[in-house]
């Protein structure tokens, strides 16, 4: 059913993409504009005197490389931790169906309704007691609180779509459950795991509130926090540097998506299959 992709559809697609991309086009322009040109210009949608000053200053004058490394560390850590414990939990709930599995899965889903903007004050006192305050790695378990519910749910759906006959055959052959989890089901779950990974990575990469409140030292700032706390100087914003930082910070995630987008879609569709 390979129909012709008519010009009307192309037009609709173009209009949608224009809406989604215009702000980015503007961000790119701002990143290469001087402050003067940003304020005084005959056409805000064009740049007449492009400059790389903002980007150079951002990388050399601020701690941006450090913020970038911190964000990468936390996002990778939180993603791995969340995906692993979500996978094991989903496996236990769907394949092992231990006593109380249903209660656990419902509880995990409900834990999603607790909004972070509210939780952060009581959570802070927990972190103090644990001596986790202002420890960069502490963001990893903190981020799992909003990653695990989603990942577990995604993987529960995905694991359910894998035929039961597979593990029954393995059981008949005498394979142990841990072996089935790792050798039989895990390879089949790859698309689901990839979508959970990409999803977790994106959410951790962009998290703001917890990183802002719980990280104190300059050395522990993430990209969003570093940019907003050090480049918004009182009533003067360093627009060029802010936008350069935002774009440089978006790039890695876009690359990840570009390479894995097919798997991501496949994983999601597996999870959503009835």
């Amino acid at each position, binding site marked *: 059913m390979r129909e012709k992709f008519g010009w009307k559809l192309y037009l609709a697609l173009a209009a949608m993409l224009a809406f989604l991309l215009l702000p980015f086009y503007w961000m790119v322009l701002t990143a290469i504009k001087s402050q003067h040109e940003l304020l005084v210009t005959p056409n805000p949608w064009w740049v007449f005197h492009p400059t790389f000053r903002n980007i150079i200053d951002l990388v050399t004058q601020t701690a941006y490389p450090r913020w970038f490394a911190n964000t990468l560390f936390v996002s990778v850590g939180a993603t791995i931790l969340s995906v692993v414990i979500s996978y094991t939990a989903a496996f236990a709930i769907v394949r092992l169906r231990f006593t109380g599995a249903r209660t656990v899965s419902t509880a995990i889903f409900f834990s999603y309704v607790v909004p972070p903007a509210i939780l952060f004050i009581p959570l802070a006192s*927990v972190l103090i007691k644990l001596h986790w305050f202002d420890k960069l790695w502490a963001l990893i*378990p903190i981020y799992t609180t909003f990653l695990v519910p989603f990942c577990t749910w995604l993987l529960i759906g995905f694991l359910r779509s894998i035929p039961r006959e597979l593990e029954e055959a393995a059981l008949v052959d005498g394979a142990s459950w841990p072996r089935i989890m790792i050798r039989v089901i895990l390879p089949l779950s790859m698309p689901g795991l990839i979508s959970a990974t990409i999803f977790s990575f994106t959410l951790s990469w962009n998290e703001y509130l917890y990183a802002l409140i719980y990280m104190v030292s300059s050395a522990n700032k993430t990209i969003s926090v570093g940019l907003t706390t050090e480049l918004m100087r009182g009533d003067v914003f360093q627009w060029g540097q802010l936008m350069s930082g935002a774009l440089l910070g978006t790039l890695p995630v876009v690359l990840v998506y570009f390479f894995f987008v097919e798997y991501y879609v496949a994983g999601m569709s597996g999870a959503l299959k009835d």
Partner: protein
Amino acid sequence: MSDRVGVVNSAAFARPSGSWLRRMLDRPNVLGILLAAPAVLILLLLLAYPLCLGIWLSLTNAVLGTPGHFIGFGNYAILFHDPVYQEAVFYAFFYTICSEALKLSFGLGLAILLNRQFRGYRVARAIMLLPWVAPTVLSALAWNWLLNPQFSAVSWLLIKLGLTHSYIDFLGQAWPARISLIVVNVWRGIPYYAMGYLAGLQAIPKDLIEAASIDGATRITIFRRIIWPLLWPVTTILLSFSTIWTVTDFQLIWTMTRGGPLNATQVFTTLAYQRAINGGSLGQGAAVAISVIPIMLILAIIALRSTREGR
């Protein structure tokens, strides 16, 4: 669904022998609990326990730095009569319903458009994700400038297109500000829906649609009778998670308007933050925040019912 039919009693088969530990690990009840434990423990420690502390706070008159004492539902009673809170409740609902409806429609539309292998579809699929991927604080700042009353590049464009004569004050008046925030939220959320629906569309067997079109069904009928019902499970999942994010959204509104002008764009989270952190009334702020949870629970139960798990 006949999940239970296939249950395998592991004792009926030759099970691996070996150490006691290995035998224990092979029991679904033991292994299952062990495997679910890390997720459950983390959520208990970092989510459930702080949540209980938060509920307790909302029942006290605590201010920043002083524990306060139990006052029952005093904070909630004050909120009930507080016009600012009422305004926040109104806008939270308005914001959520409008954004979700728009995101869902546009996201589905975009997914249908992208669900073809035209030239450059991979690039199109990757770049449409940009709004979802960019750090929200910074893209909200960029929008702030795009909607700036003096420098708005959007107004500039509208003037050049002859649609308006002067710069529009997007964020300075109640209704334009409310609508602008919804537009930005929709902008950020479309990719999420589009991605989910794209997955959902790919899961629909092609022969089903082909059979229908051979039978002479129009495109609209195919969509209404076949595609939409099959997408229903996807819709409930996308909608429930997205709704939760929208209700608990903080960054976007805080960066763009801080709840202004004149509290027109306050929602639960911004008001809670303003009361608890800026104003120091922890108990009040916690009450604002906790008052949203029953609503969320209702939403979650609806979502749960309409997915397989609830059946």
